[in-house]
């Protein structure tokens, strides 16, 4: 398992490839499914155009909560490994905010565990977004949307 808090722009696809090639070598022949979620920054929110964002976090607690979230998923599903990368600091539209990748022998565990990790991250990991609107007004995002409802 690897959890990275990243102050600079990252390429999620490169992160997945690098982790699989360099760290998961002992799992050769065991991996049957890799589920990857990438969250990127939109340029709109709540009816406004957004031109930038700052992501604040609670160093130490963030890593601790993410490790707990992965441990909980490992106790519930047969997963082989997991990688979480989350951006902090100043960020622009189209840049990656978060990567959750889960490796398993079967698709069911990979899909379900990655979804569960992502939803738990949204509600438990101490990150906060402050948006910079096109009007130059700054505002804190007050709550995350529910990932299970469609709207």
């Amino acid at each position, binding site marked *: 398992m690897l959890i990275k808090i990243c102050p600079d722009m990252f390429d999620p696809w490169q992160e997945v490839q690098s982790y699989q090639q360099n760290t998961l070598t002992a799992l050769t022949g065991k991996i049957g499914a890799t589920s990857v979620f990438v969250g990127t920054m939109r340029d709109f929110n709540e009816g406004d155009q957004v031109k930038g964002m700052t992501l604040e976090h*609670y160093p130490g607690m963030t890593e601790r909560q993410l490790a707990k979230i992965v441990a909980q998923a490992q106790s519930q599903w047969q997963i082989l490994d997991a990688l979480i990368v989350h951006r902090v600091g100043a960020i622009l539209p189209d840049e990656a905010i978060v990567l959750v990748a889960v490796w398993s022998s079967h698709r069911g565990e990979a899909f379900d565990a990655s979804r569960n990790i992502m939803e738990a991250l949204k509600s438990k990991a*101490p990150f906060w977004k402050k948006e910079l609107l096109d009007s130059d007004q700054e505002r*804190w995002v007050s*709550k995350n949307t529910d990932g299970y409802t469609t709207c």
Partner: protein
Amino acid sequence: MIMSIKVRYFASLKDRVGCAEQAIHSSGLSTVRSIWHAANPDKKLPDNILAAVNMDYVDLDSPVNDGDEVAFFPPVTGG
């Protein structure tokens, strides 16, 4: 007993309180809620506030101990 507690604030709550971190030294500190009131005597505890002691989530009525780090923050919005 006089306890020393490190209090931390994040995001919009940091803006509202006006600082990121405080050290409080006081007697009569028993719960997370009492820490808020000792540190912010002129401010009501916000309804949707979250709290952590030593980087684990806790209820507002959870106990605190000398030397603890107590953090207050709004609902998280990462991901």
